[in-house]
C-alpha cells in the first residue's frame, strides 16, 4: 500500500471511530447531566466550525456571530408560535426555516459590514450584534422584550430529555464540518484563502472578492442561526441578553484560535477543549 493511501485509510478510520463514539454517547451514558455537557460540546463544535468558514478561511474576524445565534433562536421560537407547532419532534423539522431567516439577516448585515476591512470590520460586527440585541429587547410586541420568549416544552421525561437535542446538535456539527470540508477543497475555498492572504492581490487576479466574502459570511451565519434555533428549543426560554451574548461570540473565536485558524479540524479541537457551558 502506498504511503498517501495508508494515511488516507488511517484518517478515515479515525473519523469513523470519532463518529461512532459521538453517536453512541447517549446510549452508554444515560446520566442526563453528562448528556447535557455533550449537547453543549456538540453545539460549540458546530458553532466554531461554522464561524471558521468566515473567520478562518477569509481572515475576517467577526465578533458578532452571537447575533446570528440569538436571531436564529428568536426566529425559531416565533415560527413555532405562529404556526402553532406542538412540542415534540416536529419542531426540529422547522429548524431550516430559522436558518433561512438568518441568511436573510446575514445578507443585509454582511452587505454593510463587508464594506469595511480589518479592525473596522471587527468593531462593526460587535455594533451589529448590539443592534440585534436591542431589537430583541425593544420590539416587545414581537419578541416579548425583557420578559423573554418561551418555547413549547417537549413532554419528554428528565432522563431522556437531552438525547434528541444531542443528536440534533450532532447533526448540525456534522453538516457544518461537511460544508467546511467541501469549501476547503473547492475553487471557492481557494478564493477565500487568497482573500485572507492578500485581498488586493486576490482582486487583481480576478477573485470576485466581495461576492465570495459575502457568500462565506452568509453560509457561516445560516449554520450558526440553525444551531441557535436548537439551543432555544433546548433551554425552552430565551431572553435578549442571554440569547445574544457577546461571550458566546468571543468563545467561538477563542476556540478557533486555540484549535487552529482556517483548518478543518482546528475548531473541533478548540471546542472540545474549551466547551464553555
Amino acid at each position, binding site marked *: 500500500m502506498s504511503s498517501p493511501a495508508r494515511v488516507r485509510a488511517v484518517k478515515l478510520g479515525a473519523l469513523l471511530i470519532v463518529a461512532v463514539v459521538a453517536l453512541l454517547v447517549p446510549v452508554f451514558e444515560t446520566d442526563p447531566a453528562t448528556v447535557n*455537557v455533550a449537547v*453543549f460540546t456538540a453545539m460549540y463544535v458546530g458553532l466554531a466550525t461554522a464561524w471558521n468558514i468566515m473567520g478562518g478561511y477569509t481572515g475576517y474576524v467577526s465578533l458578532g456571530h452571537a447575533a446570528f445565534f440569538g436571531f436564529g433562536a428568536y426566529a425559531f421560537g416565533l415560527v413555532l408560535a405562529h404556526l402553532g407547532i406542538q412540542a415534540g419532534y416536529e419542531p426540529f423539522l422547522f429548524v431550516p426555516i430559522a436558518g433561512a431567516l438568518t441568511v436573510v439577516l446575514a445578507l443585509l448585515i454582511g452587505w454593510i459590514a463587508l464594506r469595511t476591512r480589518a479592525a473596522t470590520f471587527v468593531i462593526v460586527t460587535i455594533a451589529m450584534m448590539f443592534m440585534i440585541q436591542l431589537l430583541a429587547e425593544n420590539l416587545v410586541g414581537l419578541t416579548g422584550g*425583557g420578559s*423573554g420568549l*418561551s418555547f413549547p*416544552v417537549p413532554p419528554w421525561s*428528565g432522563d431522556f430529555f437531552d438525547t434528541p437535542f444531542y443528536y440534533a446538535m450532532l447533526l448540525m456539527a456534522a453538516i457544518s464540518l461537511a460544508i467546511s470540508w467541501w469549501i476547503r477543497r473547492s475553487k471557492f475555498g481557494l478564493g477565500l484563502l487568497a482573500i485572507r492572504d492578500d485581498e488586493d492581490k486576490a482582486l487583481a487576479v480576478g477573485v470576485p472578492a466581495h461576492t465570495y466574502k459575502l457568500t462565506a459570511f452568509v453560509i457561516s451565519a445560516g449554520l450558526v442561526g440553525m444551531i441557535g434555533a436548537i439551543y432555544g428549543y433546548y433551554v425552552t*426560554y430565551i431572553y435578549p441578553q*442571554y440569547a445574544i451574548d457577546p461571550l458566546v461570540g468571543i468563545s467561538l473565536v477563542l476556540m478557533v484560535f486555540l484549535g487552529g485558524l482556517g483548518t478543518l479540524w482546528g475548531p473541533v479541537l478548540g471546542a472540545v477543549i*474549551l466547551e464553555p457551558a
Partner: protein
Amino acid sequence: MRKPVSLAVTGIVSLGALSLAACGSSSPSSSGSPQAGTPITIGVSVSLTGDFSGDGKALVQGYDLWAQDENAKGGLLGHHVTMKYVDDASSTTQVVTNYQNLITQDKVALVFGPFSSLLTIPASTVTDRFGYAFPEPAGGGPSVFNRGIHSLFFVQPAPVEDNLVSFTQWVLSLPAAQRPATAAYSTEDDPFTQPQVDKARALLEAGGVRTVSYKVYPAETTDFTPLAQQVISANADVVILGTQEPDAVAFIKAFQQQHYNPKALVETAGPDQGSDFATKVGTANTEGVMVPAGWWSSAKTPFNATFVSEFIAKYGGTPGDIPSDAPEAYSVGEVVDQAAQKAHSIANSALIAALHSGTFQTVQGPMAFDSLGRPNGASFLVQWQNGLTVPVYPPSAAVAQPEYPKPAFSG
C-alpha cells in the same frame, strides 16, 4: 446580564467527568421518599457572582438560617438538612445545568429557587421535568406563571404584578379635594418592574388619575438624569417609578438637583433596602418616599421577631439592614416544613399536592397558592418616616398614617 469565565473551567472538569463516569449511572427517583431519619440535601442554584450576586448572597443567608433552625428542632420531618449551593453566575444557561446536576448527579432530595424571574423561568422547566416541587422566593413576574407549570410555588404574599395595588388603593381612597389629578410613570424594561407599573397605571387611570407621562427605559441605563428630566417636566402630582436599587437612588438625586417635589413618590424597589438606601440618598431625603413591601422587620407575623433577632445574632447589623431576600428565602423553608408535616412525607409528589391546598404561615404572613403557584395575598405599602420604613396601607396592617403630601427634599 453577564457571564463568567469559570464556565470554561466547569466545562473542562465536567468533560473529564464524562469520560470517568462513563459506566452505568442510575437515574434518580424523585417520587420515592428517603427513609425516615436519614439526612437529606436540599439543592439551590444561587447567583454568587454576576449581576444578581448581592441578592444571591442574601438568599443563602435566609436559607442557611432556616436550615439551622430546622435542624435545631430535629430536622425536616426528622431528616437532618444540609443545604448545597451552586453558583449560576446570574446566567440562564448555567441555572439550567445547575438544577439538572443537582437532581441527577448530587441526587438532592429537594430543590429551592434561585434569585429573580429570569433564572426561575428556565429552572422551573427542568425541576418540573424531573417531578420536583419548586418552591421559590424571588421569581414572581407574570411570565413565571404563564407556562402552566404546576410544581412551582412563589413564596411571597402577592404576585409581583400586584405589588403596587395597595398604593393605588390608597391614592384612590384619598378625599376628592386632596386626591392627585395627574401621574407620571417611568419604568425599567424589566419583568420585575414593568408589570407592576403597568398595572398601577391601569388602576389609577380607571380611578380618574390622568397619565401625563409614561416612559420605559432599557435595563442597562446608567445615566438617569435625562429620564428624570422628562418626569420633572411632566410636573405630575404623583410619580410612580419602576426602579431597582441604582435607579431608585439616581432618580431621587436628580429630583433634588432639579428642585422637584411631587406630592407622592413610590418606587418598586430600592427604598426597601433599609439603611443602604438611606445612606445613598441621605436620610433626610428618604422622608415620605414609598415602596411596596411584603415584609418589614417589625411586622407582627408569626415567628418574625425571633427570625430578626436570630438573623442579627448570626450575621450582625441592625433590623434595618436585613435585605428582604433573606426572609423570603426563610419563608420557602417554612412553607416546605408545613407542607411536609401535612403530607407526612417529603416526597416531591406529596409536597406538590400539599402545597396546592391550605394556608401556610411564614414570617411574611399567611399565604396560599393557586394551581399555577401564584400566591393569593396582597402586598403592603410602606413609607419612610423619620428614617425608618413603616407600613401605612392598608389600614389593617398600618402602624402609621401615610404622610401626604411628601415633604420637600432637603436639597
